[in-house]
């Protein structure tokens, strides 16, 4: 049987997840500015791949947030 995690353990996990989410949001910010720059310069090649990468980052972030809520209910 799994032991329930203590509050301290949960807080440590949230800190870890928060760090990952911060990095991915910064990556998305960079992607958005770089894509906007490319779009204004008439370069279309990067637009779709950057959008896909941003969606993947968001999906990962959403998954991590869901994990936090699931962990809290345990």
């Amino acid at each position: 049987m799994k032991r329930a995690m203590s509050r301290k353990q949960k807080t440590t996990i949230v800190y870890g997840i928060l760090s990952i989410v911060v990095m991915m949001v910064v990556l998305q910010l960079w992607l958005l500015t770089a894509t906007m720059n490319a779009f204004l310069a008439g370069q279309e090649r990067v637009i779709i791949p950057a959008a896909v990468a941003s969606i993947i980052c968001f999906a990962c972030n959403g998954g991590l947030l869901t994990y936090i809520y699931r962990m809290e209910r345990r």
Partner: protein
Amino acid sequence: MNTAPPPTPTRTSPDQLSIPPDGRPYHDQPQWRNDFPIDWPQDEFVARRDFTKFLVLTSFAFVVGQLWIVVENFARKRKGLPPVKRIASAEAIPVGGSLVFSYPEPHDTCIVVRAGAQQYFAYNQKCTHLSCAVIPDLAHGRFHCPCHNGSFELRSGIPIAGPPRRPLERILVEIREGDLYATGREVRA
């Protein structure tokens, strides 16, 4: 009349520092009591969790921004090539003079400079830094942006000083039967 004393609150977990008034453990308490904790460690957990939630919302906003660029790019492609439009009579602009015109839409302000008898240079007037209007400075062979002291080379439109990093959007011009026509535009990296 019921005179029985209320149950004595007890801790049910080592994590439970304060005890709710009814003595039941936190997982049996209403949601609001868990979302607005009074214990410092639990408050830290909730604050970080909510900050993560806020960041995920920000992440979603970035995705919306990316998709907006995709839609704008699609709309730009669908528009196709800009039309050919008469600017003015070629002789209406003296050598060393300039003329402001709109191309291709009425709100797209452009400027054409006549540098020599047959030399016309036309660009979108928006500075590529923050969209201020650039001013021709023929004495120094450049376009100058007064907002942040940006400069672009007159003949090529490439940035030579200040914060702009991208060249001015070039407007292609042709002389047809003595009239100056805008025939297209060239967005450059």
